[in-house]
């Protein structure tokens, strides 16, 4: 079993929908420990990706779709999340190269490259209360699932669930990167907005693969 460019397109569409639905909630999370714009930023970026998808040729490869989505996010989200998610998708695109069918190993490579891109740009380690705290457990879970012979859809579901757990697990943490790092102990008890949007995007990836 494998996933193709249609899956990437659906992933982006699902992401746009779920981020729109959660715009206010992400905004609230970011108001609590940041500056309140994360919901707006993600929504604006993925609305732009939706328009971009319309312009993508039918025969585009997964890597091409990812690259165009990445460029769109970089030029529409702004803030910290824009370069981070943009780099993530850019590195994911590099990882899958010109493949047209993505098997489990490719999916894991894609997720890992995305995470590595974020770490490269943002220099955050696990436990610093950022989106990395959702990405890294997701990559690990995906890798285990792949090792256990799961389908791409199963791998993505495992990643999404681990990503959600990772986002939730940011709540007790003190932040050491990004805007929330100024809060010190006052960040405790609040979920990191970027980790939450990562969890939503990972679920969108899994949902997009469900009927694939």
């Amino acid at each position, binding site marked *: 079993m494998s996933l193709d460019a249609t899956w990437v397109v659906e992933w982006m569409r699902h992401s746009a929908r779920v981020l729109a639905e959660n715009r206010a909630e992400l*905004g609230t999370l970011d108001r609590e420990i940041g500056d309140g714009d994360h919901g707006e930023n993600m929504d604006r970026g993925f609305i732009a990706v939706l328009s971009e998808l319309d312009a993508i040729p039918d025969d585009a490869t997964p890597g091409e779709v990812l690259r165009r989505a990445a460029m769109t996010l970089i030029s529409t989200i702004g803030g910290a999340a824009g370069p981070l998610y943009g780099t993530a998708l850019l590195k994911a695109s590099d990882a899958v190269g010109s493949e047209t069918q993505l098997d489990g190993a490719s999916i894991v490579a894609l997720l890992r490259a995305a995470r590595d891109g974020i770490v490269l740009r943002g220099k955050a380690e696990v436990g610093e209360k950022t989106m990395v705290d959702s990405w890294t457990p997701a990559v690990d879970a995906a890798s285990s699932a792949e090792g256990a012979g799961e389908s791409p859809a199963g791998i993505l579901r495992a990643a999404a669930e681990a990503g959600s757990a990772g986002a939730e697990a940011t709540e007790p943490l003190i932040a050491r990167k990004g805007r929330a790092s100024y809060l010190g102990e006052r960040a405790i008890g609040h979920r990191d907005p970027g980790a939450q949007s990562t969890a939503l995007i990972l679920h969108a990836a899994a949902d997009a693969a469900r009927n694939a």
Partner: protein
Amino acid sequence: MKKLINDARAVVDEALGGLAAAHADILSVSFDPRYVARRGAPIVGKVALVSGGGSGHEPLHAGFVGLGMLAAAVPGAIFTSPTPDLVLAATRAVDGGAGVLYLVKNYTGDVLNFETAADLAVGAGIRVESVLINDDVAVEDSSFTAGRRGIAGAVLVEKIAGAAAERGDFLESVASIARRVNASMRSMGVGLRAGVLPYSGESTFTLAEDEIEFGVGMHGEPGRARIPLEPADAIVDRLVAAIADDLPFAPGDRVLLLVNGLGGTPQSELYIVFRRAAQALAERGLVLTRSLVGSFATSLEMQGASLTLLRLDDELVELWDAPVHTAALRWGC
């Protein structure tokens, strides 16, 4: 809270529309890609200063575009740093061949987006230098944080480096003056009531009626602590102590004092703050040599103020006094 706006998502563009209409003699606004450029840019042979960041801090930065200050400003969405393509477009629009200096406030988003823009600009054959502004002493600069934030001191860097560019300094020299200003200044603010995000109608933070946020960031980020509301003089003394002890400023130092309103504070209160700050500086033996009072780096309509102290030398005084003609700062012409 009520605002004089039309559409929460059109706030930035519409305010820029007004800026363009009111100051056509100084600047022009490009709406897509969005940036504000000095009228007559590019100026061949002169270093061009470009700054930018999230909107909601007006007049920062667009209000400082013009003679003797910025060549271009790149306003992002409210509280969201602009994207690299916009910074690149502004860079191309104002590069006069002598290179472009990016003045970047130290926020993860600003740093990352300007970094990418610099890569793209260099790729396009434009010489770019970047200077990071991080004057806010509210939060410790340690490996446990994203580092000190850039706040109202940005205005001083833009003014002084802008004057150096205007007199024809080379890129490296303008950048080094900008770094010198940044290294010689410290700031800190206090918030009494948060601004309201136009798109959600919600305050960026909430304080009790008797609380203030000591060391508030200019996006409503927290500072050192929430403390009980005190008389202005007591608050100013705290701010001056935090700022002056940090560099540290020493007796005999000549200083510039900026008292900056955060958007919803009337001028009379800024002068009450200035009064005590000037006294507190004198008590420390610092020599108040230049002053600036007004709302220059705001946080929507936040109530509160920040203080910035800059240690001066003869060259900085001369560059400060040099003519400037922008929407928000003007003298000498």
